[in-house]
């Protein structure tokens, strides 16, 4: 009987401990989550205004411009239904380029400009972040589907 009580106390403590730890981990998770929004969703104001989120799509050709300070760049990101202007200060990843898929993490400013803290790099030319691929598939614009379809296909062929 005594041993059983002891065991019950242990099990109770363990459950309480795991519960507390899990709730702490989850609440910490909430503050470190960043949601993904497509340019269309941003245009429709579905994005949070006071929190960090991610936006992704293709970098629009001829929009990549370097600012006076030599470090800040601006470019438009599109899902071919809507575009979001993005500003980023710092060194861009090697494979960043016009017409390429990109995911940027940051906040949106009062001026409607997305200020990125981080621009996702990738290691492989034929890799497309899954969110971006999804975004482009949901934006039913013939041209885009064709062009990204090709790059996805060549990615698959690369296997």
């Amino acid at each position, binding site marked *: 009987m005594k041993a059983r009580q002891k065991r019950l106390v242990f099990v109770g403590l363990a459950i309480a401990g795991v519960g507390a*730890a899990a709730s*702490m*981990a989850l609440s*910490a*998770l909430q503050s*470190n*989550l*960043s*949601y*993904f929004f497509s340019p269309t969703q941003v245009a429709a104001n579905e994005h949070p205004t006071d929190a960090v989120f*991610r936006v992704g799509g293709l970098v629009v050709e001829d929009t990549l411009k*370097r600012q006076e*300070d*030599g*470090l800040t760049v601006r470019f438009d990101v599109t899902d071919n239904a809507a575009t979001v202007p993005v500003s980023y*200060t*710092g*060194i*861009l990843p*090697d*494979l960043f380029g016009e017409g390429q898929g990109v*995911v940027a*993490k940051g906040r949106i400013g009062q001026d409607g400009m997305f200020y990125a803290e981080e621009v*996702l*790099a*990738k*290691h*492989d*030319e*034929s*890799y497309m*972040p*899954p*969110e971006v691929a*999804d975004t482009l598939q949901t934006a039913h614009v013939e041209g885009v589907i064709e062009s990204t379809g090709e790059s996805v296909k060549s*990615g*698959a062929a*690369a*296997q």
Partner: protein
Amino acid sequence: MIPELGHFALILALTIAIVQAAFPLAGSLVGNRQWMAMARPLAYGQFTFLLIAFACLVQAFLTDDFSVLYVAQHSNSLLPEIYKVSAVWGGHEGSLLLWVLFMAAWGGLVALLSKDLPATVMARVISVQGMIAIGFLLFTLLTSSPFERLFPVPADGRDLNPLLQDPGLAIHPPMLYMGYVGFSVAFSFAIAALIGGRLDAAWARWSRPWTTAAWVFLTIGIALGSWWAYYELGWGGWWFWDPVENASLLPWLVGTALMHSLAVTEKRGAFKSWTVLLAIFAFSLSLLGTFLVRSGVLTSVHAFATDPERGLFILIFLCIVIGGSLALYAWRAPEVSEGGRFDLLSRESALLGNNLLFVAFTVLVLFGTLAPLIYEAFDWGKISVGFPWFNKMFLALAPFLALLVGFGAATRWKHDEPMRLVKLLWVAFALSIAVLAITSLPTFSGGHLWVPIGLALSAWLLFSHIAIVRERLKNKQGWRTVVADMRGSGRSFYGMVVAHVGVAVFAVGVTMVSNFEGEKDVRMSPGDSHELAGYRFEFLGAQKAPGPNYQADRGHFIVYKGDRKVTELFPEKRAYLAGGMPMTEAAIDAGLFRDIYVSLGEAVGGGDWALRLYYKPYVRWIWLGSIFMALGGILALTDPRYRTARVRASAPAGSAVGARA
């Protein structure tokens, strides 16, 4: 012709794997000695045919046979010879072939080295290895054969991804795979034991060296990957909590828990069911890692071209492996007798704590890694979990682990006296408190809370282990004992000490670099100087510099500390001729106490460059600590106990051994 030979060898290997999975196991169940005896030759045969297949692929790469699709996609005639070899595992198909080759190599090694294993156990282990091999060989042959031909034959190949043209990455995947696949041996031993219904100290002793060996490879593999990411990606980070990195960390965490749990099972006969469970999960997480990396379901900076269809195959395979082994566990584990009672203050308790902490951290990392999938499945939105969360979770658990390691290594099996521990460890404890006090001073800590904590915990790890070694040498003949220990069965003890000191070294590195690193993105014109963390970086301009298969812009920096010239750095921005992919080649002045790191961003006109400067104090200690851990593992591995033990353990037949505790 030769690629077809390779393909044919793969098919033969699959045939052998099928025979290997069926006959020895069946033989062990019905008591057919001849069928059981097939295990060894089959394991050797499988390895031989996979080696032939692998050699055929290497040959295709070395001779620039671009009629092979995989070669055309991952090589180029301009590629330096050495990278033509490493390009073999530069893509999915080839790395999979390397994976099955290693799998067969581990099987062959078990067959070769475990001469004294009872025939039934050997037969079952090799059969389980065969079953896993069937899965992977089917996967290779059905979805990703590296020997597929390409018509018309292109004039030249697409080239190896420039990021992979690097000595660090040439050896990183083989090490990592050796680790991943190595856990299959621990898994096979566990399954074999479950089939036989015999989980005993002998079983733990057999699988211990294999587990440690796999763990050593995985440790080296992860450390190499981290080092590579640090110098090659040009962001100066050493760990990003990226899904692909987590995929390699998860089996390592469970593998570490398994190593410690096996110690209890071997020495005290306790934790048997738990140890089996860990062995199953260590390998399952290796498979899950493969699935995550190959399927592309998660956004990763490390993701290379992926294919969801392949992911599905691995997912199904993963379900069969986990489901099957857990079902077997549920069926058989209750029959396994529990042994070895122990007191609250004992090494068993400490190792239990170790296991709980490692498993808790595994669950957290797994959850954080899979959270985007969970959210997506429930339609809660597309999320990513920021790395601060992982850091927080790590910091929440790591201090307890560090404290525990010092105590745990000092405690005795079964029962220990509190006073003995106090007597043994109070000096170490006092010294660590002193370190805590000194490093808390604002002049030292710079106001960072974690600096004193991290350094005091490292000090505790170091001093407690010095005390433990002193205790072992007390009343003995000093250094002569060390020599005798190293010749004999003391090696696993010193292995433990070295590995734990490695944790201390690692902790110093992490603490210092996380709190004191400096980083700056700047635009510089030739002749400009910029100051960072007490160093003055002078930019002398960038010039064109041709390479063997690329064209580079090479920057020239002189770094001063005060008036003293510290080093000259030549970071490069390369454009590879095949494919034109740009790549940053950072320049690093490495030192034991600090790295100075410059990477070029882009030319912004007029000879100006956007570039990034880093100051990384103690960053080398992170990898140095990993090397210590791996060395500790190797030392423990060479303990002669495992060799003699096999002779002894194989002597008593039947289940009598299971009763010892």
